[in-house]
């Protein structure tokens, strides 16, 4: 029985955290959000050099053979650092291609594993697989992250299948002015694009991949929410008013305790969702939906509370807290709102 991170898992988190501290300091994030690019090659290469592209790939196929729980721990650190790039999609892409029977698509596996080829999700419709409505031949998908830099699109196809689509001919990209500037989105249109069918509509593996993606968003939200708590607590210890640190005042102290209370217990929910997926437990899909809904709400709530706890400085552009607030908007909406996943969870419980 073990339900706390292993030394190895903590080491992976430390490696990702250390790399991001080097390649994605506050100044880089500031520059990125003030620019127009939807991708940052330097931080991407540094993260991929850690082997994230092959994290979920079995060892006999050149991967690290780790599970969704490990990937979620990576996504958590990425969320904490407001990292750019479709890291979650990249980690899942190699797994998706390796699990498919389409042998031709496997030609892309090495480049996905190394991170040389950037993969991103293109899930259209109303996010849920049954609502996907595009095909490589025709259709468009709103809200695709880092589309301009992507070499490969993991396209959710009509009725709930998955195709791997190559960038280039037959693929048109129209940037969306995105509220989360650390993860810029585009509308991507497909018309006769070069593609590989990976899973047919209705294949149960598609639902499983979608659930995995939900867990990674939940983990990103956990990391982002943790950042908001940490920043607010540090500020309360340092900022003085009335001749003392504001963190001594009970009103603020209680606000901060309440923020931490939103986040810390929810960590174990993300772990459970990852574990349940890896162990293929009967409640894995439901746990993923619950984790996505709960963590997205906690992130929004804590990001708002963080601005309030800071006072004026928290409301400025310069201070940068707004980048995490904006990420909370993304994590809440992306792949379906908390209400959507709670409705699913109620269905899955058989209520």
């Amino acid at each position, binding site marked *: 029985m073990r339900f*706390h991170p292993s030394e190895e898992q903590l080491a992976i988190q430390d490696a990702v955290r250390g790399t991001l501290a080097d390649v994605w300091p506050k100044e880089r994030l500031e520059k990125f959000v003030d620019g127009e690019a939807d991708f940052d090659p330097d931080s991407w290469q540094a993260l991929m050099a850690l082997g994230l592209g092959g994290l979920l790939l079995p060892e006999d196929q050149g991967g690290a053979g780790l599970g969704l729980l490990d990937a979620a721990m990576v996504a958590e650190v990425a969320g904490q650092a407001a990292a750019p790039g479709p890291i979650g999609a990249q980690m899942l892409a190699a797994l998706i291609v390796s699990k498919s029977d389409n042998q031709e698509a496997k030609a892309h596996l090495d480049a996905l594993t190394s991170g040389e080829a950037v993969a991103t999700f293109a899930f259209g419709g109303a996010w849920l697989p049954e609502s996907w409505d595009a095909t490589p031949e025709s259709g468009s998908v709103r809200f695709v992250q880092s589309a301009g830099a992507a070499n490969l699109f993991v396209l959710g196809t009509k009725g709930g299948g998955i195709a791997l689509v190559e960038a280039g001919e037959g693929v048109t990209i129209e940037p969306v002015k995105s509220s989360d500037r650390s993860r810029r989105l585009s509308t991507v249109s497909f018309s006769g694009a070069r593609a590989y069918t990976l899973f047919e509509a209705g294949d149960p593996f598609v639902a499983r991949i979608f659930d995995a993606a939900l867990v990674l968003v939940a983990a990103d939200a956990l990391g982002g929410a943790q950042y908001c708590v940490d920043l607010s607590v540090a500020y309360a210890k340092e900022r003085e008013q009335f001749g003392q640190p504001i963190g001594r005042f009970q009103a603020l102290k209680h606000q901060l305790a309440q923020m931490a209370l939103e986040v810390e217990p929810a960590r174990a929910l993300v772990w459970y969702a990852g574990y349940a997926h890896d162990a293929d437990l009967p409640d894995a899909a439901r746990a993923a939906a619950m984790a996505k809904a709960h963590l997205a709400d906690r992130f929004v709530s804590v990001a708002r509370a963080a601005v309030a706890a800071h006072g004026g400085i928290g409301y400025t552009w310069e201070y940068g807290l707004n980048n995490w607030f904006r990420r909370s908007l993304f994590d809440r909406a992306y792949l379906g709102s908390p209400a959507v996943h709670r409705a699913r969870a109620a269905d899955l419980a058989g209520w």
Partner: protein
Amino acid sequence: MDLSYGAEAEAFRTEVRDFLRATWQPGALRGADLKAYITDFRGKATDAGYLYRAIPKAFGGSEQPADVVRAQVIREEFGRARAPMEITGNGMNMLVPTLLEKGTPEQKELFIRKTMSGEYMWGQGYSEPGTGSDLASVRTKGELVGDEWVINGQKIWTSQGDRATHMFALIRTEPQASKHGGISYLLIDLNQPGVTRRPIRQMTGDAGFYEFFFDNAKTPASWLIGERGDGWNVSRTTLKHERAAIGSATGLGTQFDKLVELAREVTRNGKPAIQDPEVRQALTRIEGYVMAHRYSSYRLFSLAAAGEDGGLVQSMMKLLLTETGHEMALAAQELIGDDALVEPASAGTRGRGPEKWLDQVMGSLGNSIAGGTTNIQRNIIAERGLGLPRDLAMGAEK
């Protein structure tokens, strides 16, 4: 991560199950016969090493090395067989650990066995009418006259005060000393002329607590635990042995299941309420917290099994329980609708309708107060968990 307990624990489970099958057969026994059977069973279960694991053999315990996984397996299997575990209550939970750590051999001999057998039942004498969250401000006086302490004052919020035979109490014995340094930890026999007890009727209408008045009550000088003036520190002794337990110990999950049941039973717009989209949203929103609580208890259990500290999340469990209980109370109130206008019959009586949820609705308010108020919990999380500077007004605490 791995939620299975492992081969060693499963072998132990089989052993416990076999023991229970052979030893716990109460059949149709009732009344005094059942009581005697249970006493005998507890003795056998203790001999087998399943009960009173933290208590030395010299005092009637089974003196087992701390092992949270085994303790959990025992809880699960005894629960499954509906077999009685240790006698619980303030005496076993609070006094005995304190005696084991701070008591003299004579005190241990005098009190531990009788507490385990249920002969001595203990009330907690901490709070006073003027002493709530600021516990170290207790004013009940103890004066050493000859070889006896003479006690005057009042204690309040003593649970099981109707049955208590004895009390462990924080008494001010050193009026000249500092606030925290003037308190001693004394044991008091409650069945004596100088002690009066009175029930406190609470908002539910029941009386779960008592207050005690001391008017020249007496207790032997040797019933002082620890040194004079060290009572504050003595009272902080807690049972660390196998304290971690998984999930259901808190009842939050069970209560949530009942709430879902309620939503199936009551109707909304002519259909079971559980089919209403709003109700489904409300329930799953609460369930997010219930799951966070459950899996955090797994996390704490796992840390305890590895001999590691629970850290920040440990300090949050009570507040999370309280707040989620409040959310459930509000949801239940919404579901029962006009039945909230009906006063529920006493718990355990037949024919209680949805209005029985008013017990939980009101009881959830008690949870915000008992065992450290919600605001005190927030202070603890902020100061000990997040490292925020201590409140100046409370700075005197050591």
